[in-house]
């Protein structure tokens, strides 16, 4: 266990500690609500990060998936169904939408993947906007209730904190798994993986289903948080901000999406209280981060740590620091060998 790993673990423990203790630190309901917004946005960004970091698939349509799930819950709530049924409908809608996204995008990559997902997000937006008998059109659906047992703002806060930790853990585990390694193989060279006998499209579809399902879950949390959904949740603007959060925090890093989400949400909701030209500030932050920390905040921080380590006299460690996430190069030989039997997944 090297020094940077210790630092990483301490940081994570501290982060969780602060997260858990937050409601007891004299914070108001508003602060908790704001942090909840950040965590939900961070969770959604993490699902985008998984696809782009491990799969090299930059999605510009994840807002659409989250919104579809939120609309599912909203519609169920409008029909007078109980929260349990809301969850069922939301998950059903999410699975269908993710499957359609995955199916239509699995044969594309790079810029074309970006465009297909953008197009699909726009279709969801269009439906939310025009299908007003189901979605309430422009005005959206209001008054969506969350379950009684997480009704209080602080119980709900713990609920989403737990959901976030679980999601992050899950994505981390998947990313470290053989499946994640194969995804990275596809990211780096589709043709090589294909010639090795991998069904590239199925892998991509599976990755998309995973990411989409979690994104739908985040969408459900969002609607439980605000009790409200409208077409803007599916808009291009939202989806662009999601990928922006990921790049800002650092593509492929574990906590990058959360950092990116925090910056965007705080500028939008807090800085805008005091600075009228806050969109300019937000734009400048994007530009400056790219100029001075090209790998995003966490990505560049990880690089910096590694560079300092190199100067360190202690023996080099070939595992990447935990903060570096998916930048870790997987030896292709070993990877492919260990999955030769599983290539037709799923």
């Amino acid at each position, binding site marked *: 266990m090297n020094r940077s790993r210790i630092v990483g673990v301490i940081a994570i423990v501290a982060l969780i500690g602060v997260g858990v203790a937050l409601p007891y630190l004299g914070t108001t309901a508003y602060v908790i609500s704001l942090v909840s917004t950040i965590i939900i946005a961070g969770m959604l960004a993490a699902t985008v990060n998984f696809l782009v970091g491990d799969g090299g698939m*930059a999605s510009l349509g994840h807002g659409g998936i989250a919104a579809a799930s939120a609309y599912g819950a909203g519609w169920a709530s409008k029909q007078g169904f109980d929260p349990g049924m809301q969850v069922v409908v939301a998950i059903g809608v999410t699975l269908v939408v993710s499957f359609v996204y995955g199916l239509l995008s699995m044969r594309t990559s790079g*810029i074309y993947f970006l465009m297909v997902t953008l197009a699909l997000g726009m279709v969801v937006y269009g439906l939310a906007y025009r299908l007003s008998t189901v979605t309430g059109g422009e005005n959206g659906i209001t008054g969506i209730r969350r379950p009684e047992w997480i009704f209080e703002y602080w119980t709900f806060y713990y609920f989403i904190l737990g959901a976030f930790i679980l999601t992050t853990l899950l994505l981390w585990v998947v990313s470290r798994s053989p499946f994640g390694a194969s995804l990275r193989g596809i990211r780096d060279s589709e043709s090589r993986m294909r010639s090795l006998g991998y069904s590239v499209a199925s892998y991509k579809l599976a990755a998309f289903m995973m990411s989409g399902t979690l994104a739908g879950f985040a969408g459900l949390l969002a609607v439980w948080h605000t009790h409200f959904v409208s077409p803007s949740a599916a808009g291009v603007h939202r989806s662009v901000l999601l990928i922006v959060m990921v790049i800002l925090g650092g593509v492929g890093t574990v906590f990058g999406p959360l950092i990116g989400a925090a910056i965007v949400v705080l500028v939008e909701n807090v800085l805008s209280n005091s600075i009228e030209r806050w969109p300019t500030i937000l734009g400048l932050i994007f530009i400056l981060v790219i100029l001075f920390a090209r790998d995003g905040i966490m990505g560049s921080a990880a690089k910096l740590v590694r560079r300092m380590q190199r100067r360190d006299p202690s023996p080099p460690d070939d595992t990447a620091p935990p903060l570096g996430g998916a930048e870790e190069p997987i030896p292709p030989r070993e990877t492919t060998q260990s999955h030769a039997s599983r290539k037709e997944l799923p």
Partner: protein
Amino acid sequence: MFEPLFLLQQALNGLSFGALLFLLASGLTLVFGLMRIINLAHGAFYMVGGYLGVVVAGLTGNLLLGILAGVAVVAVTAFLVEFVLLRFVRGQELPEVLLTVGVSFVVADLCLALFGGDPYTLPSSAMIQGSMTIGGLTYPTYRIFVIGVAIVIGVALALVQTRTRVGAIVRAGVDDREIISAMGVNIRWVFTGMFVVGAALAAIGGTIGAGIISVRPGIQDDVLLYALVVVIIGGLGSVPGAAVGSVLIGLIDAFAKAWIPDLAYFTIFAPMALVLVLRPTGLFGRTA
């Protein structure tokens, strides 16, 4: 709904809107073709061109001066964006996305600070006024003029691409960047030049378009979306594709509004999704 005159009028409505879309999308697709950048600040360039064009055309009463003013300012802005920012992240898709989004945020917000939130439309004194009557059909002259401008620019782009040395360099650059560097052409300046030209096309679109749709806060996202749709349908990097995509979307939009009004707006995105399913690289795009 189906009378010949109404159909003809709708066709012209669609074609003229399509012409505006072409002005908008051609720059985006050219830049993509050569530099592989999706310039998400393209809409912001359109916006700046539109605001300046309307203001200058209003002051001078001359549309051409308005266009030139818009083009000049946007060209300088685009040059700075390329030279100071984009050069540092050449070839890295995601940082390019973030950079151009950032530029778009800043430019649009500064436009709001400078020009206020009022919608700006070209004053009629600076527009080609009146309407033409052909047979039984009356149609605004200005919209015919927009179609003309789009055709002229489209033909000019085609000629430059096929008949000139610059065009040859650009075409070579699209196919193989290393080759033209090896030929002794400084590809970095070719890129810069193309980026500026693409932005200038957006600025022209902004000023001319202000006679049809007013320039206002938020227009940058709306027109970017239209341009992306057109470019996706036509195929990224293809100017003929942009032309076909523009006309297609213009016509679909016009007729959908009349015939399937409940799906209007949605009908812009549905064909895009369809094209992507059947031919992910677009109608005229080369296979990746």
